[in-house]
Structures are given as C-alpha cells and as structure tokens.
C-alpha cells in the first residue's frame, strides 16, 4: 500500500530522515517507533505532504505522492491524526466530521449536493460514524468543549471520514490511561477489519506491541530494525537505542 524508498529530509545541516525505506502492506497495522528525535514526526509530515522531501520517493497504492499537496494526498487515500490534537475547536462535533466527509460508492452525490446539502443517506452515515466513536450524543457540542478522550476519538473519526486507504496515526495514545489505550486498540483493530491500512507512530509500547503486525524502528533518521513485535522486543539494537545498553533494557515487553 505504502512504499517509502530512500527517503531523506535535511533541515540545513540536520539530517532528520536519512535514507529511510519501508513498506506497509495493504490491510496491515504497521508500527513506526523510535526514541525522541529519531525522525518519526518528520516521516509522518513527509508522507502527508506538510513539507517536501529532500530525496527519495513516497508511493501510495502505486501513486507517487511527491508533487501532491496535503489535500491532494487525502484524495489519493492518506488521512492522518495529529500528535497535538488539531480539531476545529469552534465547530461542533458534527461539523468537524462533515467538513472532512467523503462519500462511499453508494452515496455519491453531485458537487452541489456535496457542498450545499445533506441529501441521501449522508446524514445517517455521518451519525453512524459518530455513534461508533461513542460521540453520537455530543454531535452538537463544540469540539473544544470535549474531554480529552472524546477529542482523540473525534480526531480518529474525522480522519476516517475522508474514507482513506491508509490512516496515519501520530502518537494517538499520548496522554491516555490504560483503559483508553485498550479502547483505542479495539478501534484500530476495527479499522483493520474494515480493510483500512493503518500506520501507527507511537511511543506507548503497550499499544504498539499488541496491535501491530510489523514494526520498523527508527533512530537518527534511519531504520535500525524491523520485524514482528516479538522480534523487535528481543532486538539488541533496539534495546540499545532506547536504553543505552542491553544491560539497562529491563522489561520492555508488557504483553
């Protein structure tokens, strides 16, 4: 689904990403982890088109994303959530979804109906997504008045509303307690069941190790390891990157 080849991003002298290559297979949940400063955020921004890469290519389902603006990449099939929640605070929950909404095959509307009305079963479908995100009862509340957990769920719903082929989750579990992490895990697995590919960038190992199919570990803008969660947990280089040395590794797995 997603192919990243020889990706590099230099900010002046700083090599944030340096020769990164990985592939996310269709329908899988793929994890991207690494210590702070390893280039995860930069990679996310490169994939979503926030700024152009210095070198390399990014291909989604065969389509080269390089010259595309962020909104064009959404049309190509990428959606994302943000590390620091970026909802439209003064819009209601409903409006946040409506703004990003793209129709499925069965509710295709004309441009006019898309911009100016809620015809067809569009209203019903939006409500369904809201209900599924446990936000149905909050549809008319302003987004900035939601609780933290509700805001996170709305971000996820809003990304899903664009009917993407792949959703990029940027540290979605940050600040969550254990219960919320489990809830998030269930939602990610539901996305997978529905056929959406997921690229998960995350620190919270409790989530990463229990929801991903494969993981790539970054450090200093390069890949230092990749494999299944189990393989990663036992990988010496990964332990070194996180803890400095194998002796300090302690208990990495929370399985």
């Amino acid at each position, binding site marked *: 689904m997603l192919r990243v080849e020889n990706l590099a991003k230099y900010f002046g002298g700083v090599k944030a990403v340096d020769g990164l290559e990985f592939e996310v297979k269709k329908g899988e949940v793929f994890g991207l982890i690494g210590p702070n400063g390893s280039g995860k955020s930069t990679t996310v921004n490169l994939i*979503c088109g*926030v700024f152009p890469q210095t070198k390399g290519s990014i291909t989604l389902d065969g389509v080269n994303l390089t010259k595309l*603006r*962020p*909104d*064009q990449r*959404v*049309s190509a099939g990428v*959606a*994302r959530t*943000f590390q620091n929640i*970026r*909802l*439209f*605070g*003064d*819009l209601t929950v409903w*409006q*946040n979804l*409506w*703004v*990003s909404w*793209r129709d499925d095959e069965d509710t295709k509307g004309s441009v006019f109906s*898309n*911009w*100016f*009305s*809620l015809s067809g079963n569009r209203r019903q479908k939006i409500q369904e997504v809201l209900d599924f995100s446990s936000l149905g009862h909050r549809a008319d509340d*302003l987004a900035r008045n939601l609780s933290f957990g509700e805001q996170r769920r709305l971000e996820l719903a*809003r990304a899903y*509303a*664009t009917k993407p082929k792949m959703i990029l989750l940027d540290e979605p579990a940050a600040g969550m307690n254990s219960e919320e992490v489990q809830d998030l895990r269930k939602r990610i697995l539901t996305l997978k069941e529905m056929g959406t590919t997921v690229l998960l960038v995350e620190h919270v190992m409790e989530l990463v190790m229990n929801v991903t199919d494969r993981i790539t570990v970054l450090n200093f803008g390069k890949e230092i390891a990749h494999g299944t969660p189990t393989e990663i947990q036992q990988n010496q280089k990964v332990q070194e990157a996180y803890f400095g040395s194998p002796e300090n590794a302690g208990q990495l797995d929370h399985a």
Partner: protein
Amino acid sequence: MTYFLGILQTIGIHTLLGLSAYLLLLTGQLSLAQVGFFAIGAYLSGIFTVIFGFHIVPALLFGALVAAFFACLVGFPALRVKGLMLVVATIAFSEMVRLFFFNLNWRVMVGGQEVGPDSTQGFREIRYYAANGWSEIEVVSFIWFFVILVMAVFWWLDKVRVGSVLRAVGADELAAQSSGINLTLVKVAAMTGGGLVAGLGGGLYAHSVTYVDHNTFTILLATFAVAYPILGGTSTVFGTLIAVILLQGVMIEGFRFMGDYRNILFGVLIIAAMNFRPQGLVDSNVIIAMRRFLFWKSKKTKEAESNA
C-alpha cells in the same frame, strides 16, 4: 424623516461593505481589497446607467460581476501565499483601483449633456433614481432588499457544509488541508463572493449619493469594511449588522457634536476592542444566551396561554 432615511441608506450600504469582507474573514484572511471592488461596482454601474442608459438592476449586477471577476483575479496569486502578504497585496490593489479611476476620463454626450467620469473631478451625474422618479422610501427599500438577501444567503451558507469548510480553514489550515480541503480554492471562492457583494454595494452607493470620486475609495474605507465583521464578531452575520449600526448610527451620527474627534475615536475603539474583546461583540456565548432568552420567553408565553 429624510434624515432618518438617510441613515438607513448609509447603514445598509455599509452593511454590504462589511458583509463583503465577512466570508474571507471566516477563512482567517484580512483583505483590504473590498474598497477596490466597491469602487469598481460604483463606477461601472454608474457608467451603465448614465452612459449606456441601462436599467439599474442589470447595471448593478454587471458591476458586481466585474468586481467579482477582479476579485478572483487578485485572489489567485495573493491567496497562495502567507496571509500577511494578502494584506499588502490587497492594499496595493485597492490603491491601484483608486488611481485608475482617478485617471479615468470617459466623457460622452447623452441627451444633450456631457456625462461620465471626469478623472480628478469625479463622476457626477449618477441621477438614475431621480430621473426615474424613485421616492426615498423606494430607494431605501431597494438597498435593504439586497442587504437582507445577502445576509440570508450568508446565514444559509452557515447551515450547509460551505460555512463549516470556511470556518475550518480559518481555524486551522493544516488540519483543514489534512481533511482534504483545497485551501486556495476555498479562499479564492470566499474572495470572489466578497467581491460580488462589494461590487453590489458600490453600485448602490454610487446611485445613492449621485457623485463619486476617488477620494471616497481610500484605505480608510477598506479598514471600515473589515472592522465591521471583526468588531461585530464573525460567529454570525448579525454581528456585522450590529457593528455597522453601532459605528455608523451611534458613533458617526450620534457623536456629530464631537467633530474631528470621531475619527480619532475610531482608531482608539479598534485598539480597545482588539485588546478586550478580540472575538467581537456577538460571539458564540452571546448567541447561546440569546437563544436561551428567546426559548425562555416562548416558554413563558406558552405557560401564560395555558394558564389563561
């Protein structure tokens, strides 16, 4: 009565001016080009009624369409770049328009009289209303017909997806882009719509005052255009209307006795408002309070009726 009708005319036209900046302000962009579109609408519709003898409605519409066309033209390069550059670009555009009309000389003999824009002398003979026997009340109603129409359209836009998209762009451009919104398209559309409204307002203005010259269409007027929605609040169209009523009705007319101090007060008012109430007079809390009040009032009425 004439005095009161005159104030109504001014408030109506200034409301259109303010509304023309409204759409773009929703997207978070400050445009000082509205006075340029206003001028285009004024001169063009005047030329159509005076030189070509058109009826006022097609003249107004044509002026508005041309203004909208220029809004689109200016919008494309100016809106691709940072918002602050838009401020500079729109100032330059408005000044360009003003200078263009300052130099415009198109005198034509119509019915034995020489009419038309006369460069520095301005454009004098825009006497459509008088020549066609419109009463003052008809003129005021004509103006307010358009004001209410535009307000209704904008109110409706907020009920459909367009309004949310505009406000999303204004709230967070990156999030909006990441939700699939084409920023430039949205901003240029808002600018074009604003140009249309400004052109309409300009045409109505020209025929109201029967004489326009380049001195009217200054950056100060452009500032008024954006001041109304900003001071009134962009949560709802009514904010702009209230701001116009307060600024024009109360300040300009009510404080006539203050003379020059009025203009100085304008600047002070803006600074004070931005410091103490940057969200404008009518914000979402005020709207919620008003709704509760109206709901409470209707409940009281129903109770009174059921008790009677």
